């Protein structure tokens, strides 16, 4: 398969059409494997879609003790094999992109498999079919890249780990790599509250973060 996905975040309008359409895929009917998040709603309406990046050396597969996560001949990283998955969630915690999710009802890790049921029959994945703006596109490098003013990047550096992916990010810069260095980035957001303001903690109790499960 020559085609792959191109994620162009500056086009994302945050409509989550992809999230809804992903549920129609026969291999995980009713469950969405794609995520769209606000970057920082207080500052901007910018949003970012996250699909599996289909790493050339997938961290999720590397950390799997049961060898349940396989890559097919097209370089698509599949969901965990049901008979092998141990419920350990190593993959959920290890993926640098935060993609795999653990389905507690089915005792199974599940993730985006680039709509294998569709792409194997020559159809576009659901998310790339419905995306109104082309923030998620499916096609060959030659089809997509010449049309865009953004540049394709498929190497990511997370601290000491360098990851190459089948899926491209389309960025408005000439960088060859996306370098993620989390240290200190969010420090400025702490302690901004003015003294004397009433606290809202009493009325709005946050529950445990279970966003990695569904």
């Amino acid at each position: 398969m020559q085609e792959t996905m191109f994620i162009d975040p500056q086009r994302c309008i945050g409509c989550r059409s992809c999230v809804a359409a992903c549920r129609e895929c026969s291999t995980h009917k009713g469950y969405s494997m794609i995520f769209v998040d606000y970057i920082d709603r207080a500052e901007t309406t910018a949003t970012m879609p996250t699909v599996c990046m289909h790493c050339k050396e997938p961290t999720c597969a590397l950390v799997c003790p049961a060898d349940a996560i396989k890559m097919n001949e097209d370089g698509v990283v599949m969901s965990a094999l049901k008979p092998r998955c141990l419920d350990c969630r190593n993959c959920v915690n290890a993926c640098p992109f935060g993609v795999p999710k653990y389905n507690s009802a089915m005792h199974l890790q599940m993730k985006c498999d680039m709509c294998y049921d569709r792409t194997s029959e020559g159809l576009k994945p659901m998310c790339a079919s419905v995306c109104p703006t082309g923030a998620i596109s499916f096609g060959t490098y030659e089809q997509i890249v010449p049309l865009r003013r953004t540049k394709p990047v498929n190497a990511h550096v997370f601290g000491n780990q360098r990851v190459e992916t089948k899926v491209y990010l389309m960025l408005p810069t000439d960088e060859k790599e996306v370098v993620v260095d989390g240290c200190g980035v969010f420090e400025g957001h702490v302690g901004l509250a003015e003294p004397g303001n009433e606290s809202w903690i009493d009325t709005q109790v946050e529950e445990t973060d279970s966003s990695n499960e569904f």
Partner: protein
Amino acid sequence: MANRYSLKNMSKVQNLDKILEEFGPHLHDAPYEGWRSDRVIDKVVPTHCPYCGVQCGMNLLVSKGHLVGFEPRYDFPVNEGRLCPKGVTAYLQTHHPDRLTHPLIKRNGNFERASWDEAFDLIVRKFSELQDKYGKDSIGVYSGSSLTTEKTYLMGKFARAGLGTRYVDYNGRLCMVSAAAGNNKAFGIDRAANPWTDIPLAEVLIIAGANCAETFPVLNKFLWQQRDNGGVWIVIDPRETATARQGDLHLQLKPGTDVAVANGILHVIVKEGLVDESFIAARTNGWEDTKAAVERYTPDVASQISGVPAEKIVQAGLLYGRAKTGMIMHARGIEHHTNGVNNVLSYINIVLATGKIGSPGRGYGTITGQGNGQGGREMGQKADQLPGQRSITNPEHRKYVCDVWGLPEEELPQAGVSVVEMFQKMREGEIRGLLSICNNVMVSLPDTNDVRRSLEGLDFYVCIDFFMSEGSRYADVVLPGSAWSEDEGVTCNSEGRVVRINKANEPPGEAREDWRIIQEIAERMDRGKYFGFSNVGEIFDEMRVASKGGNADYYGITYDKINRQNGVFWPCPSDDSKGTPRLFEDRFYHPDGKAKFHAVEYVGADEKPDDEFPIILTSGRVVYQYLSGNQTRRIGFLVQQCPEPYVEIHPELAAKLKINDGERVKVVSRRGEGVFPALIVRTIRPDTIFIPYHWGEQLAVNQLTNPKLDPISKIPEFKACAARIEKIHGRELPILGKGRKGTSLSEVQKGK
């Protein structure tokens, strides 16, 4: 007449809890018989989305008579498979447990199951009694534009030839009617001038008051094609919407000051010598007055009024003025104002002065909101309109339509009034009975407290709906109609393309196709001879003839031609015509073939901020809900993304009022108040707050909005009124769901 509704305790909705329990809105989020991948698909039906004016093509999957999914319709040229989240989940509404499946008659305050015969008998008896006692005009008909064009034609005909009442109007009155009026004044016709395939050919786009990202998601396909070609967007909006953020130049104006901004831009264009004198001389009238009017609107003056920095107004003028090609598009943001028509005209002046119209990449258009917003305003369900965009006040037009209908001309009523005025007449007792279809007055009309008084005062209210809406709770009879996939017909999308809706499944239970319900009422009122249709195609054929020779001429359109060409752009006057994708290539539609300038002055919103109400309140939409939300507020996925309305507040204003993000605050206007969670964002002006409008009762922003009307289009001023924010104590909070949700999916999941 005040005593007619002074008995406060005798509400028509006495058992709200019971109504909610029985009819919802409940959340449902799975296909018929659940999410399954082992289904055999019996048929694939190509059709279009039921929601906005883009009318995206989609294929519906049918198994054993039920809609069980959709498949992208890659071969339909407008969207090529693309859909927004509403479109993706649209099929989930057809088998929703809240569907109305049998007629209901209200007895002692409770809705009770009734047979169709009982319901029809009651309707005919009540309508006849009221009309005998108070005259023909005592019954009003209020229709909508999410119906197929055949149905909108039928509703106009039913009101005039069936009931013989002058009072008929439709919910497009709350939508783009200012654009319709402005277009008619300037161009002599009401349709977007260009097909969307012109957008990628425009060097510069001016997008005014249109949050395309949330309200016309799939239109972004064309916008980004234009961008990929090297194009530039100028976005004019009080909020930094996703579209404004993605654009190149954002003019973040104060709500209601569009005329100042547009006149300012035109002023720059004139000063820089960028007007097209030969176009103005050959194809327009009235330039001198307009030129004189904009003289006063220097960038500084425009900036002072609108709050947009003067250099941005200059930049916008230069970008658009110097470009070879360019298009101006606008939507509700400039139209929902007491000066909505003037706002529209001020932008049209820019188009005409630069001659950027009538050729590829040079154009203009309103982006119509409702699915059939365009078709719904063409075939005679507007208060003053007959089929084909004919006028009910024009004797020749009256005669033509009466000849087609076989109706004696003296029986054709005169023009009625707009819907907000109809509801005023209900409170005054002139309209005593109402038949409504395809709308939800308790959400979508301004000042819902007054609307409630209108409904409470009615002697008899019949509602045709497929879900119980907040408005239909006040009805005496509710008739179960059809969802979009349960009937066939045509709609006209926002670029003027007539497309075909195909039937995929049958209405559930005893529910019936809407047109059959109307036809049956007409028959039982002895007016059946005007409604002898045996299928939708016969309505379409009569409609074609009725529109022949009018502006919106459908005569040459056939279902077959629509299928062959992937839609037909009207006017299509003859069998050999392929339709007219681009208007105004060589003439405008005024008798002399020329377009008209209209000199307009800035007046501003009816209600301006003062000491008591110091903030400007504006309202709008979110991508997950459609109009009054009667369909979308029941779909689990959509509600999960945006479960309730919120109020967007700038951090500067929030700091002044000591409001935290997520805190519930009371928003008060002269007409009402509501409690909404605060969403503190830098994407709105510090002097303005925003609340989305799709919800009813205590969650309705329309408790607060100003019902004051534009004098020409009669559109209410949804987009600007004066308000204030009050902090409230925790114990005063209404109980409306738990916690603040809806800003991101991650946040929603946390709450699980």
